């Protein structure tokens, strides 16, 4: 029997501690092929690896001032492939940040907190359910 292809997940955060935490959580609780990047630049360089979903920090230039920020990275991802879903992360629980992410076509926005991983899991599951429903709907539509 053919082994199903693992979902490829990119985790992007210049906070190496939070990045490692997410990587551990995903390794323990989900079966993804994970690639981690500490900058938006590194993420963009590796888009040819075709991630199925990207988790991206909003403040990517918090430590290195010359690095590109989360929104610029999001825009570059979307111009490379607008279909890649991007979930934004931020330690700021602010409406302006959430709106900014949505205006730049992020799939969702999650605040970094103790429950961030649980919320990430839920959002990722919702995305793939939505994608499955969309495929089924298209299949039926093509037969009408």
């Amino acid at each position, binding site marked *: 029997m053919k082994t199903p292809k693992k979902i490829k997940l990119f985790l992007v955060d*210049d*906070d*190496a*501690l*939070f990045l*490692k*935490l997410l990587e*551990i*959580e995903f390794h*323990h609780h989900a079966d993804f092929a994970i690639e981690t990047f500490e900058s938006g630049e590194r993420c963009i360089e590796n888009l040819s690896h075709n991630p199925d979903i990207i988790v991206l920090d909003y*403040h990517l*230039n*918090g*430590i290195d*001032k010359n690095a590109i920020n989360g929104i610029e990275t999001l825009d570059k991802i979307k111009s490379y492939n607008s279909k890649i879903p991007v979930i934004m992360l*931020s*330690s*700021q629980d602010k409406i302006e940040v959430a709106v900014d992410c949505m205006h730049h076509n992020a799939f969702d926005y999650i605040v*970094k*907190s*103790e429950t961030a991983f649980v919320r990430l899991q839920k959002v990722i599951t919702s995305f793939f359910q939505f994608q499955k429903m969309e495929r089924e709907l298209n299949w039926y539509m093509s037969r009408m």
Partner: protein
Amino acid sequence: MNATAKEKYTNLNYLKQLTEGDTILIEEMIRIYLRQTPLIIDAMKESLVHNDWQSLQEAIHKIIPSFSIMGIGYDIESIARRIQKYEYSLTISKEIQAQVFELETICEEAFKELEAELKNIKENTL
């Protein structure tokens, strides 16, 4: 804020739970924290020198998630949250500066505890 002999600034219960007690991962997380946090504190102090409100806010955003990972108490995290909540102002007030220095002092204590923790892990795995 003074930690007594019984009171510690850090609590590794969450980290132990997260890593399922994997000492290699615990060690790796502590090392990342010890490498990264001084850089963030330096960025905070530099922003005070240059009266750079935005850089201060960015550094605060970066330091906040580490508190819950290293089990640094909510009362200490709330100092950072208070700085985060201040509205933008042209000059960084003495009050904010004092809070940044308080955070630095607490983090330095946390570094000592975590270095001791690393030593413990090393001794127990030999």
